């Protein structure tokens, strides 16, 4: 075992890089036709960052409208389009592409591979997703067909039938919504298949399943879950289009169809989708937390088991979105129980993270700060999730601002925080430059403060009876002040994100040179140069433990002596 050494030298021929970069058009062409997993990863990340700004702007308009009662800044129709587009964009064009961007860039590097299993499928999937997004946004221009301008989807991101039927949603906006999700859904499926195949078959010598970094493990779980969840959504979209154009009656209540069929299909997709988005956030935290507290992750086998358990349990909880549709008391009790059970594996994860921190030497760098924010916020999000699983209480809280607060705690407080953490963490690997720590800390504190002002307050609006999806409210309901607070918090988050965007762009040229391993980390991506060459590793590495770089840095005390 002692005859191997890491890090492996990565660059075969360092002389060619700068001199042969070509003209701008040539370089653009290279990016468009690329099948390199790292470039596709970066394309995914840039694409989702762009849509993060777009959907964030939509959120700010929503908050501007709701800052005071009876506001007329947006009309009812425009407001409905904005919240529909905000939700759809954030889930399908921000959350999913971010996760696939990270997976694309990191997974092959972490398992010591030269690329994904199917590089061309990888490129095809990215462009499908990208054009799906463009199709969705084209609806702003083409949604009203030949008759007029401006008609984006306005049926909510959940698009409950029969509101989506031709009689209630004329024009083509709803068609763009369905088609865009079908197209980007196929892209998603392609990438999910690709990640599963890559993780199963492309691991380097010595990397058994139980030696994979947790990031890779979780992305494997997520990809398998994606295969199961995106399919019912795609099927439902086809059924919707059949209803709208081929005289189908799946959801057409006027002809004996059922709204509940859509609701079941949507949430059989929709709830596991939450885990599809949040497991990559866990994955990022699993990488960052150990590195910045200088300890191995606590209870690796339990973390793997908990992730797989979450995958399975998450498939049996969808109807907790449907406690108010009139299910029997036994069904309500069943979905209450199954939902509460998700708390057990999730709890194990939180405890293991705390145990990882315990006894470490915690360095409060920007990536770590975002992960600490994630830990607190995810704890709260989990506990409000327990509250919502209590079905009688959910009869009150369902579709209120409490629910909005809860799922933004998950989607922003956990997922976006981890995405930011991951961007700060891997940015030096992808660009060779560190992002500014000073700006990063400003970003973190502003974003965290804005986040809490907005979403902590929203819980109380929900308890005070404010329903979601309303474009305005009556001044006599006792919601005025809290809504203003929520909007101010939104503005602060907006400023923080702009600060991030500035840091993200400018650090590419001005950031401190990172070197191969700026964080003193332990997984294989830090063994190659920053940015890695197209072939990743000159010699494919061989590993003997979960932390190959720890073994290389501590030859006297390697991990493989302790791992079972």
């Amino acid at each position, binding site marked *: 075992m002692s005859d191997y050494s890491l890090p492996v030298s990565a660059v075969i021929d360092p002389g060619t890089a700068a001199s042969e970069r070509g003209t701008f058009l040539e370089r653009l062409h290279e990016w468009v036709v690329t099948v390199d997993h790292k470039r596709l990863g970066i394309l995914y990340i840039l694409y989702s960052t762009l849509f993060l700004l777009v959907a964030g702007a939509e959120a700010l308009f929503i908050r501007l409208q709701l800052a005071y009662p009876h506001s007329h800044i947006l009309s009812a129709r425009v407001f409905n389009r904005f919240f529909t587009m905000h939700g759809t964009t954030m889930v399908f064009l921000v959350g999913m592409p971010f996760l696939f961007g990270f997976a694309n860039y990191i997974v092959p590097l972490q398992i010591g591979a030269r690329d994904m299993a199917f590089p061309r499928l990888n490129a095809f999937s990215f462009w499908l997703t990208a054009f799906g997004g463009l199709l969705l946004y084209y609806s702003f221009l083409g949604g009203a067909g030949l008759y007029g301008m401006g008609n984006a989807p306005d049926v909510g991101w959940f698009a409950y039938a029969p509101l989506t039927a031709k009689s*209630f949603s004329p024009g083509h906006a709803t068609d763009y919504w369905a088609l865009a999700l079908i197209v980007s859904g196929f892209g998603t499926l392609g990438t999910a298949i690709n990640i599963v195949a890559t993780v199963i078959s492309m691991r380097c010598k010595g990397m058994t399943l139980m030696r994979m970094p947790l990031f890779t493990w979780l992305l494997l779980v997520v990809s398998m879950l994606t295969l199961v969840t995106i399919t019912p959504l795609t099927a439902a979209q086809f059924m919707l289009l059949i209803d709208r154009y081929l005289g189908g009656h799946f959801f057409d209540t006027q002809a004996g169809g059922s709204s509940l069929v859509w609701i079941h299909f949507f949430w059989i997709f929709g709830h596991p989708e939450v885990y599809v988005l949040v497991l990559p956030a866990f994955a990022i935290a699993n990488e960052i937390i150990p590195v910045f507290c200088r300890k191995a992750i606590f209870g690796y086998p339990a973390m793997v088991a908990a992730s797989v358990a979450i995958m399975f349990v998450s498939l049996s909880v969808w109807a907790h979105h449907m406690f*108010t549709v009139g299910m029997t*008391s036994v069904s309500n009790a069943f979905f209450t129980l199954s939902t509460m059970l998700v708390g057990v594996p999730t709890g*194990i994860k939180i405890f293991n993270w705390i145990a990882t921190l315990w006894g470490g030497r915690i360095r409060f760098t920007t990536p770590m700060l975002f992960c600490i924010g994630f830990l607190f916020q995810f704890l709260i999000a989990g506990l409000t999730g*327990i509250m919502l699983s209590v079905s009688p209480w959910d*009869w009150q809280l369902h579709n209120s601002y409490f629910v909005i607060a809860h799922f933004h705690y998950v989607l922003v407080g956990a997922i976006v925080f981890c995405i930011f953490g991951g961007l700060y963490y891997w940015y030096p690997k992808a660009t060779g430059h560190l992002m500014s720590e000073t700006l990063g800390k400003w970003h973190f504190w502003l974003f965290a403060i804005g986040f809490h002002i907005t979403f902590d307050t929203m819980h109380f609006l929900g308890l005070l009876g404010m329903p979601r999806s309303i474009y305005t409210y009556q001044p006599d309901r006792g919601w005025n002040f809290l809504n203003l607070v929520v909007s101010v918090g939104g503005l602060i988050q907006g400023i923080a994100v702009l600060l991030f965007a500035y840091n993200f762009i400018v650090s590419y040229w001005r950031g401190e040179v990172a070197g191969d391993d700026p964080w003193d980390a332990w997984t294989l991506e830090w063994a190659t140069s920053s940015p890695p060459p197209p072939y990743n590793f000159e010699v494919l590495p061989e590993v003997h433990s979960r932390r190959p770089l720890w073994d290389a840095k501590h030859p006297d005390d390697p991990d493989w002596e302790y791992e079972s």
Partner: protein
Amino acid sequence: MQMVPTRHLVRLGTAAALSLLAASNFAQSDSPSTLAPASTPAHQIFDLSVVVVAITGTIFLIVGGLLAIALYRFRTRKSDPVTEPAQIYGSTQIELAWTVIPLLIVVVLFLTTARVIFAIQDAPRPKSALDVTVIGHQFWWEFRYPKYGVVTANELHIPVSSGSVSEPTFLKLTSADVNHSFWVPRLAGKTDLIANHVNSMWMDPQKPGLYLGQCAQFCGSQHAMMLLRVYVDSPEQFDRWITAQQQPAPQDPAAAEGKRVFETQACINCHTVSGTAATGRFGPDLTHLMSRVTLASGAMDNTPANLRQWIKSPDTFKNGALMPAMQLSDRQLDEVTAYLETLK
């Protein structure tokens, strides 16, 4: 740097306390707050929620506290040695403990919850209960009292159910078009209105008064203006109200011209006024329009000026409402308004 964890916690705590303060300050008596229950199902839910908050709050204090302690105690110090800290890979006993304890908490929470689910959802319907059928429309509520032959809209009247006279109200809910949701937070949890699907719920408000609510399932452009008012009347008030609603529409000869306009325009395709040619069911029943305090499902107060403007151009108040502007002349508008003003 070192103060990060404490600051974080303090901020969280202050934010929560301030919001709570704000919440209690702004919860006025007519606020549709879930924190001020006034009917058995709402009370049971509120009591359950207190138990759940106590359990989850304790979990938050313990786990959040441990996290804060870890962050504070194990921060990097200048005095730290340059070597790495001791590597600990896991502990089966500890991990088993924090698997089993949450499982036990889940069992307790589930059993507590299940009791309330069955208590509310499967509550027996007493003989004295009042039945009301609720039909959701884009963007208004239709209420039908089958026992009394009364049909009204947007403002539900039900009797108080207190002390010796237990008269809960049982609602049957369905929809004429898209999905809606009936939510009056102080009286009960919400229940969806779905076409081809009849749901039910009940409430037994203990104090007379006005209880506000609104549609809680996005139903189209004017979902926000599908407001809901529930008047809980004393038994005498309720009897008086029902008797008045059972009368046919008043016939005031002074408004005959307005009635003629009403009956010869498309108004009658959608609206009903009992005892006239108007028998439409697409829009609200107008037989006793003047007994209602608001128009267009709470979009504005029921004043003659608002009524006239609403008939002239519904988009002024509720852009996207399905009532068309009827293109009446000013004189016709005045006459129709005058006629509708007689429908007391």
